[in-house]
C-alpha cells in the first residue's frame, strides 16, 4: 500500500524523484503513527482513567457508577495488594541486579578478539530471542524435582524449586536472568567497544592497575549505556507476567501484573483493575524518572 503510494507520488512529480519531501514523510508516516497512538494508546489510557473512578464491571450489564476515589482507597489499603508489591519489588531487585552482573560480566569477557567471537556472541543472544512462554515451560521442566536436569546436575535430590514458597521467586528470577542477561550484555558490549583505546594505553603507560583502570575508565564511560539497560530491564521486570504466570502459582510469586490480570480478566472487576493499573503506571513512571535524572547527571560528567 505504502509503496504504491510512494510510486504514484514520484511519478506525478518527477522533480522530487530523489526522495520524499518533509511534507510527504509527515503525511505518509508520522500522521498515521500519531493517529494509531491516539486510537490505541492515548484514548484507552484516558478512557480507563475514567473507569478507574467507577465500579464498572465489563461482564455485568449494569451501568458504571461513579465512586470517586474508593477504588484507589481500597487498593492502597489492601494488605494483599501491598504483599504483591513487595513480591514485585523483590523480584525486580533480584532479577535486574542478576541481569546487570551477568550481562556486564559476559560483555567484559567478550570485549576482546578471539576465534569465532561472532558465533559465541550470537549463541549467547539466543535466550532473549525466545518467547517468554516457551522459556517458562522449558524451565519448569528443568526445575522438575523428578526428572529435571538442574537438580540432577547440582545433586540437589528432590528439592522442589517451584513448590517451595521461598525458593519459587528465586527460581523465576534465575529464569529471567538467563533470558535477559544477553540484552544487558549486548548494550554493554556496544558501550565497551566505544571506549577509546588510547585511554587504556595512557593508563598502561602510567602503570595503572587493572581494577583502577576498570573503575576510573571503563565504568564511567560505560555507565550511561548501563543505565539505559537498567531502565529497560527495571520497567520490564516490574510488569513481568508471562514467565511468572506459567512457572508457578505460589502466592509468594504473585507479582502485581498477575494480580492485575486476575482482577481484570478472571473477576472482571474492571473499574478497580483500571485503578490498580494506574497505580502501577505511576510507580513505573516514578522509578523511570529517578533513573533518567540520574542518567542525565552521569552524561554531564
Amino acid at each position, binding site marked *: 500500500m505504502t509503496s504504491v503510494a510512494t510510486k504514484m507520488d514520484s511519478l506525478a512529480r518527477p522533480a522530487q524523484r530523489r526522495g520524499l519531501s518533509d511534507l510527504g514523510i509527515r503525511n505518509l508516516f508520522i500522521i498515521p503513527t500519531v493517529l494509531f497512538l491516539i486510537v490505541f494508546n492515548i484514548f484507552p489510557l484516558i478512557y480507563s482513567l475514567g473507569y478507574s473512578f467507577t465500579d464498572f464491571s465489563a461482564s455485568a450489564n449494569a451501568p458504571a457508577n461513579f465512586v470517586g476515589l474508593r477504588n484507589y482507597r481500597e487498593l492502597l489499603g489492601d494488605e494483599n495488594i501491598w504483599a504483591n508489591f513487595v513480591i514485585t519489588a523483590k523480584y525486580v531487585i533480584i532479577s535486574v541486579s542478576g541481569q546487570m552482573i551477568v550481562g556486564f560480566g559476559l560483555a567484559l569477557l567478550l570485549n576482546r578478539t578471539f576465534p569465532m567471537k561472532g558465533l559465541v556472541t550470537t549463541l549467547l543472544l539466543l535466550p532473549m530471542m525466545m518467547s517468554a512462554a516457551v522459556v517458562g515451560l522449558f524451565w519448569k521442566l528443568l526445575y522438575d524435582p523428578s526428572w529435571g536436569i538442574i537438580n540432577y546436575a547440582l545433586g540437589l535430590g528432590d528439592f522442589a524449586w517451584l513448590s517451595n514458597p521461598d525458593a519459587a521467586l528465586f527460581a523465576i528470577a534465575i529464569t529471567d536472568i538467563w533470558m535477559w542477561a544477553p540484552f544487558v550484555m549486548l548494550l554493554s558490549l556496544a558501550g565497551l567497544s566505544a571506549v577509546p583505546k588510547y585511554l587504556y594505553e595512557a593508563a598502561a603507560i602510567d602503570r595503572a592497575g587493572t581494577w583502577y583502570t576498570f573503575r576510573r575508565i571503563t565504568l564511567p564511560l560505560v555507565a550511561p549505556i548501563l543505565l539505559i539497560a537498567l531502565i529497560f530491564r527495571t520497567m520490564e521486570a516490574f510488569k513481568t507476567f508471562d514467565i511468572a504466570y506459567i512457572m508457578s502459582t505460589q502466592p509468594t510469586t504473585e507479582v502485581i501484573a498477575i494480580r492485575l490480570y486476575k482482577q481484570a480478566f478472571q473477576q*472482571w472487576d474492571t473499574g478497580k483493575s483500571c485503578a490498580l493499573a494506574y497505580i502501577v503506571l505511576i510507580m513505573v513512571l516514578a522509578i523511570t524518572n529517578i533513573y533518567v535524572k540520574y542518567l542525565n547527571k552521569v552524561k554531564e560528567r
Partner: protein
Amino acid sequence: MRKNLKLLLAGAAFTLAGAASAHAEDLTIFWAEWDPANYLQELVNEYAAESGDTITVETTPWSDFQTKTFAEFNAHGDAYDMVVGDSQWLGAGATQGHYVDLTDFFNANKLNDVMAPATVKYYAEYPGGSGKYWAIPLEGDAVGWAYRKDWFEDPKEKEAFKAKYGYDLAIPETYAQLRDIAEFFYRPDEKKYGVAIYTDNSYDAMAMGVESAIFSYGGELGDYATYKVDGIINSKEAVAGLEMYKELYKFTPPGWGKTFFIEDNQAITEGLSAMSMNFFAFFPPLVNKSTNPNADVTGFFANPAGPDGKRFAALGGQGISIVSYSKKQEASKKFLEWFIKDSTQKRWAELGGYTASQAVLKSPEFQNATPYNKAFYDTMFMVKDFWATPEYAEILDQFNQNIYPYVVGNKGTAQEALDKTAKDWTATFNKYNRYSN
C-alpha cells in the same frame, strides 16, 4: 492473474450464497481442550450427516477457558453459538444475560426426569430451586481416584500393611484409610510416593480437591440460598476436611505445588504414586496401554467417606448453553433437540462421553463399558458443587489465596485459613448486596 482472483472470489461468493439458501448452518460449540471435546466432535459429525448443519467444536486449554469465554461474552460476540460451560458459570451466564433461557425447552422435553438429578441441579438450574434452566447437562463428571492394583495386591505389601496398621490393605473406605495407605507407600528413597492430589490454584483445581474432602467430612462451603458462610465454611467439619487434605499433601511426589489433571495422570503413568485424584473424564488415557504403561494394573474407586460415614465428591462436568449473542439460536435449539434423544445419549456414552441421561447411566452396558464407569455411576449420586453465583470467580480466588499457603506453603492453620475465607466471602457477598433481601 487478477481476473482469476476475481473469478475465484465470485465462485466463493456463489458457494456461500448457495449454502445459505439451503438453510444449512455452520454452528460452533466452544469447550475446553480435553478428550471429551474430541468425542463430542465425533458425535456432532453424525448430526451433520443427518441434518446438513455442520458443527465445529472449538477448544482452548483449561487454564484460559474461563477467561476466553467471558471475554467473548462481555464483547457480546457471536463467535460461539453454544458453549459447554462450567457449572459455576451458571450464575454469571444467567444473570448477566449471556445464556439463552432454556426453561421452556427443558420443561417441554421433561428433562427433569431424563437427566440425573444432580446434573439438573448443578448444570442447568439457576438460582437453585427456581425452576429456571439455562443449560442441558452434557458431560457429567466428578472427582474420583485411580490406584495401582499391583501395589495394593502385592502379598508382601499386604502383610507389611496389616502389621503396621492392623487392618487389610484394600480400596480405602474412609479418608483416614486413604491417608494410611498414602503414608504406607510414601518411600522417597525408592522414588515411590503415596498419593497425587490437585494443588493448582490458577483456576478451580485445588478448590475441587479440597471441597471433596470438606464435603465428605460433613462440611459445607456455605448456605447457597442465604449466602451465609460464617460458621459454615469455618465449621469444625470443614476444618477437619482441610486438615486432611494438607495431611495428604505430605505424601505427594516432590514438587507437587502446581498440579492438575495432567500431573495427576502422570503420577500413575510414570509409576510415581499409589493413588491419584482426578476427574473421571480424565481417566480414559489411564486404561489405554499406549498412554499408560501401567494400564493393566490401574484400578479406580469413588471418593472415600469422612469419619461420620458421610460420602460426597466434588462435581465437575458441564452443561451446554446457547449463547444469547448467537445469530443461529434456532439451529442450535434444533441440535439440542437431537442431542437429548435417547439414541444420541447412548451413542454419546459409547463414544466416551459422560452422559447425564439416567437411562443410559443405569444400563449394565454403560456400567461395564470401562473399569471406572461403575465408580462414576456411584459418584454421580453423591456430588456437591462449588458456588455458582455470578461473583464465583472472586470467591474462588479468595478461597485459593487462603487455602494454598496453608496446604502447600505450610503457613498458619486450617482454622485460620477458613476463618479468613469466611471473612473475605462475607465481604464479597456484602459488596454484591446478597444479604439485603
